């Protein structure tokens, strides 16, 4: 009955949130002409190659890390690896790049390879989280019966991989566009990217119309490819899962040993950037950076929380919508993920002039809303995949029990979805903390966020303060994620 009552609310909610998120972008639509030049195509290709490399490398790293974590002993070393990965993700890739340069690796690798490795290192925690969450929802009985008759590798190849393949494809799509929109890291490594051209156009032209047109170009191309992408993604989003834990599978002793060794090696490898930061950091940077880190963390947490809630609501709406609406809504969010952040910032600056929003847009709340809108597309796409994998929408109990929407959230959805929502929150927080382009355009006068301070210090070349600020930001961000984990774990997992 409850589900029947929600039948019109679901699509309505999904469409409303999609429409609201699209609104700021509409200001950038005029000016699509005169952008289809050979140099634009070349840069599109160059950025595409980079994004392809990053998506493939991040996914491969995520799968290897997941394998190692499953094979190895899940002790302190695994926790340390998780902390290192989380810290890396919460920092802007530019900080990882400074560590990369400190080790002289930019001289060893080509600009493309350096950009791919730095960005893949940044995004692989996302691939790892998706893989682990996907694995945790596999059918345990199939994996266990497979392990009786075959080796773990055969089980991984013939039972696990086919079930995970399309989820990885979806994660690869998200990673591709995240890497495609990266501007600073590749350009600092002298690799030409599309985003740099858009910024250059924005800087030179009197009106942002030409740059906006340039920005819509890949979005339009993606829309053309949308039917094919949908064919790939649809099985993931329509999967039926019984649910269960495959993580407790019995591993052979020899494999366990290999797992432990690999775990130690990978932990050492991912510790290198943080070690470089520790070696460089100066005490002044810690104290000077405290206020900006505090502000960033507060605003970033609110943005991530708001975007996670909105992303969850969009997916809740989609779960109760006709199947034809789903590709439309997901395509709208995919396009927003592709468009550069500077355009959202300009759109929000225009929107802030509306009389109704004028007062609110002068405060920090406007930055929270802008960051939430910036990260929302990623969170909607991620939650769509993880929700389908969790099988929460196919619970028989939800059909049989007449629960209110809130009660359903509390007793059925949250106990199943909290790891996915936590993963989305961490992704939102990481993206918010390193969001630069929209911050400059909407930040309230007098508010200093860590990313602004970080880039100013990088420009000045005060590396001791940069390193200290980065460490502080990573520690504080991890603290927030750990707190969220602790609260959700105590409430849902232990219960």
């Amino acid at each position, binding site marked *: 009955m409850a589900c029947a009552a929600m039948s019109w609310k679901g699509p309505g909610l999904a469409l409303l949130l999609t429409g609201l998120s699209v609104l700021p972008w509409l200001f950038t639509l005029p000016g699509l002409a005169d952008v289809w030049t050979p140099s634009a195509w070349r840069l599109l290709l160059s950025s595409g190659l980079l994004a392809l490399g990053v998506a493939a490398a991040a996914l491969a790293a995520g799968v290897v890390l997941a394998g190692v974590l499953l094979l190895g002993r899940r002790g302190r070393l695994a926790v340390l690896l998780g902390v290192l990965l989380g810290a890396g993700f919460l920092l802007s890739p*530019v900080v990882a790049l400074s560590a990369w340069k400190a080790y002289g690796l930019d001289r060893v690798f080509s600009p493309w390879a350096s950009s791919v490795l730095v960005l893949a290192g940044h995004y692989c925690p996302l691939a790892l989280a998706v893989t682990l969450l996907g694995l945790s929802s596999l059918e345990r009985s199939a994996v266990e019966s497979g392990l009786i008759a075959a080796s773990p590798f055969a089980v991984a190849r013939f039972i696990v991989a086919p079930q995970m393949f399309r989820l990885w494809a979806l994660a690869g799509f998200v990673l591709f566009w995240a890497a495609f929109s990266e501007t600073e890291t590749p350009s600092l490594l002298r690799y030409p990217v599309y985003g740099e051209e858009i910024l250059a156009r924005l*800087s030179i032209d*009197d009106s942002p119309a030409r740059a906006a047109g340039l920005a819509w170009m890949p979005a339009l191309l993606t829309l053309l490819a949308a039917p094919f992408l949908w064919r790939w993604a649809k099985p993931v989003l329509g999967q039926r899962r019984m649910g269960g834990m495959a993580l407790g599978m019995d591993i052979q002793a020899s494999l366990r040993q290999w797992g432990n060794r690999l775990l130690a090696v990978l932990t050492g490898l991912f510790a290198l950037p943080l070690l470089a930061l520790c070696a460089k950091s100066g005490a002044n940077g810690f104290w000077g950076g405290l206020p900006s880190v505090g502000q960033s963390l507060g605003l970033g947490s609110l943005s991530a929380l708001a975007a996670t809630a909105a992303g969850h609501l969009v997916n809740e709406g989609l779960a109760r919508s006709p199947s034809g609406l789903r590709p439309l809504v997901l395509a709208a969010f995919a396009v927003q993920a592709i468009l550069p952040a500077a355009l959202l910032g300009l759109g929000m*600056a225009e929107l802030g002039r509306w009389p109704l929003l004028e007062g609110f847009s002068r405060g920090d709340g406007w930055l929270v809303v802008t960051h939430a809108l910036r990260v929302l597309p990623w969170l909607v796409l991620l939650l769509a995949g993880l929700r389908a994998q969790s099988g929460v929408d196919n619970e028989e109990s939800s059909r049989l029990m007449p629960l209110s929407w809130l009660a359903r959230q509390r007793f059925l959805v949250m106990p199943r979805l909290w790891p996915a929502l936590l993963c989305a929150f961490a992704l939102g927080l990481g993206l918010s903390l390193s969001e630069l382009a929209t911050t400059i355009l909407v930040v309230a*006068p*007098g508010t200093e966020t860590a990313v*602004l301070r970080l880039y100013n210090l*990088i*420009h000045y070349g005060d590396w001791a303060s940069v390193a200290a600020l980065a460490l502080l930001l990573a520690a504080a961000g991890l603290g927030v994620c750990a707190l969220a984990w602790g609260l959700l774990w105590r409430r849902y997992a232990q219960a």
Partner: protein
Amino acid sequence: MTIRFYRLAFIFLFAFSGLSAAAQKPEVVVYTSVDQVYAEPVFRGFEAQTGIAVKAVYDVEASKTVGLEKRLLAERQNPRADVFWNSEYLRTLRLAQQQALAPYVSPQAGRIPAEAKDSLGYWTGFGARQRVFVVNTQLLQPEDYPQRLADLAAPRWKGRGAVAKPVSGTSSTHFAALYARWGAAKFSDFLNALLANQVAFLPGNAAVRDAVAAGDYAFGLTDTDDVQAALGRGDKVAMVFPDQDSDGAFSIPFTVALVAGGPNPEQGKKLMDYLLGLEVEQALIQAGALHGPALKSWRYLQPDLPEALQSSARLIQEALSR
């Protein structure tokens, strides 16, 4: 459950309203592209002297100067800033042309030469940074240092020089001024010569400085304050003012302007007066943000510079995409 939900919603609303609440004391809002490390002490000095709180928005090089200029234009109908303090002048000229600025002739402007301020009072320039070579002292001996801008295109320096991609910041102002001065044909020849000489086009002046300090390039074209910062942190670099036997180095003054329709015009005027004072200029020279007027230099502050930027940028884009 419902009560808890509403309690949570109330806490959120409270947090948001707290974040948005503005302090009720005299304040001035300034947008500045001057590096935060230099601008912040100046604002603290103004606050101590006047009791007016300064709320600043800083730009960063990574945003390619897109941030503040576009923000001021987007906010033109409903401005939030009172003062725009720019680390160069081209974007100030452009904002003045688009009616985003208001005229104000500060009493402090009397000491500033006529060519460094707008005749109608829409902006006032002060101090100067120069476009200079940063040279790696471990790769080059003083007698070998490049001495002219044309050295970037000299065969002797093939593959050893770097410049910031001249589409943003002071490098775009410099190249626009070269275009305005030389005309399209000579400017194109210069660009082609740079490309033929394998000059690296890096994402910003700081990137040029860091690449030269790291030994990736023997020398590069950047701003005086970038080199001062490198010298301050002990990098093995030297600063060379080019063309001292001809026109001198290209010079870029800071500009300060009152934003049209800003919410606190009186406080904005006070801040402008303070910024244009000799003490601030001297403090900025001492900090390394500005350079003293000791060496030979030239500048181009004509109103046709914004058009020159468009034309030069088109040629640059064409050349770089070849």
